[in-house]
């Protein structure tokens, strides 16, 4: 049984790594890259949803990572690896700084405050033209490069995105299975009890918020060098909405749900190119149907069909 599982993981890994090379379709590879990038972002959102806090600033934090990495490479001559590293640091540091203020609030107040913060970031990108290039953003962001070798092959970008998504996936899985994960679960519903036993709830919330910000920042760093341009509108609050839809569709309780959610939702805009206006309608329907009838998402449905309740 255990060997089977092992072989299954290896087969899955080979399939995930190999398909773009076999298929050789640039467009499909691009979609695959987007799926991986949004999986990573949705995982960062999942960390927050797990402690019962929905941040609409997730796109803005990703944007800070993207702009930070772009400016570091273009204005300060950072090599790609340093710019990319900086994108995560910026995302985490900004979260660490605003966390003590915004995390004091719960529920809808937290949602509104993070929305406001996100708008301030986007406005700064738009209005501070000298630094951030205004509405047009920044063009000509250097591509990723390793040891002086510039990466132009789409398949390599896909592999980078895949590695990031896989890293995020296994990191979250390890966290959720640890005692840290047990504390995160209790922060959601039983904070008073946890605190009475000695848990510094604010410190844990801040740690989760900063980790989430770091992941979103890294996603931004990748974005900048993959697309070679950054614009303010790419990082507005609709990002966070999409991430929530991915989480709800796949199932908040398990990282595998996020992967499934991204796999289904990310290709939709490309498939619905001629009917973009229906996309938002579809998102709304998905949210209503899943929250009402399948709050555990697709993963919950699979578990129900297989008659088991845990991972």
């Amino acid at each position, binding site marked *: 049984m255990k060997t089977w599982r092992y072989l299954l993981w290896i087969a899955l890994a080979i399939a995930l790594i190999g398909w773009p090379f076999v298929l050789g379709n640039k467009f499909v590879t691009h979609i695959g890259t987007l799926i991986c990038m949004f999986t990573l972002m949705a995982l960062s959102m999942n960390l927050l949803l797990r402690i019962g806090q929905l941040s609409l600033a997730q796109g803005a934090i990703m944007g800070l990572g993207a702009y930070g990495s772009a400016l570091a490479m273009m204005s300060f001559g950072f090599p790609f690896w340093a710019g990319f590293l900086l994108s995560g640091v910026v995302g985490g540091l900004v979260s660490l700084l605003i966390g003590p203020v915004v995390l004091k609030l719960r529920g809808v107040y937290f949602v509104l405050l993070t929305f406001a913060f996100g708008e301030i970031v986007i406005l700064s990108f738009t209005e501070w033209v000298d630094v951030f290039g205004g509405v047009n953003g920044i063009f000509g962001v250097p591509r990723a490069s390793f040891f002086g070798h510039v990466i132009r092959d789409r398949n390599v970008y896909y592999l980078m995105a895949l590695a990031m998504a896989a890293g995020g996936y296994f990191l979250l899985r390890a966290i959720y299975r*640890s*005692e*840290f994960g*047990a*504390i995160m*679960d*209790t922060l959601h519903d*039983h904070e*008073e*009890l*946890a*605190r*009475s*036993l*000695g*848990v*510094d*709830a604010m410190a844990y919330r801040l*740690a989760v918020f900063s980790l989430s910000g770091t992941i979103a920042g890294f996603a931004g760093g990748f974005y900048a060098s993959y697309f070679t341009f950054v614009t303010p509108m790419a990082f507005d609050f609709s990002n966070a909405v999409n991430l929530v839809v991915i989480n709800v569709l796949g199932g908040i309780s398990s990282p595998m749900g996020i992967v499934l959610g991204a796999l289904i939702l990310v290709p939709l805009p490309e498939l619905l190119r001629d009917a973009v206006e229906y996309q938002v309608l579809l998102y709304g329907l998905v949210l209503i149907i899943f929250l009402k009838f399948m709050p555990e998402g697709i993963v919950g449905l699979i578990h129900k069909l297989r008659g088991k309740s845990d991972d």
Partner: protein
Amino acid sequence: MTEPEMAIDVVGASKFFGGLRAIGNVSFSTHRGEIFGIIGPNGAGKSTLFNLITGTLPMTSGRIRYRGTDITGLGPHAVATKGIVRTFQSATVFPNKTLEENVRLGFLFGRLNVPRRFADRAHLRRSREEAQERTGEVVEFCGLTEARHRIAGDLAYGLQKTLGVAMALAAGPTQLLMDEPAAGLNPVETRAMGDLILRIRNERAIDVVLVEHDIAMVTRICDRILVINRGELLAIDLPEVIRNNPDVIEAYLGADIDLH
């Protein structure tokens, strides 16, 4: 005769909610090795006083010391790490986990050193083994061994309340604060809870402060009783003295409570 050693020392505690005075200049000390009861009619300020000590509510003025250390203004988790752990009036447990897992979390939550657990695998293994050992001991002490693999949310109310006490004990307190431990329990369960509290003090050397409605239970197990009325201290004395204090009887008149 030597002075008893002080445990909790409250000096001039006041709490205002806007213009409403909930607690007015209350001072008292509990002793080491003591089960200390706080009683009073409904709305007298018992819960508010309790929440001031646990750090759930900030005081308007006054100071609180615990075993000589000033704990004024500390939040609930900081108070807990000083050794003061509270239990709740309603059954408060992690409902989706087993009874044993609940107690284990109680043990871990007070001592979790996350960076060290990630960095030092030997520390992680040791702390898990210790948690397992301590959990078994506390579960047995509270008489919960039989139900230890059951899901906490499915347990009967009385068992859930006992589990709440077990979790608090697992957190390793030197002082237990209990918010109405007998609330919602039937007479048999109330008696068992009272016996458990006595054993906690006698066998584990943990001091206990409890807020309670059940006067019979309070007078049975408490060494001294504080009576609070309209936010002010009415009396502190031995149970038999409190029972015959005319002011106390007056305060309870019409509350339909038999002090004897």
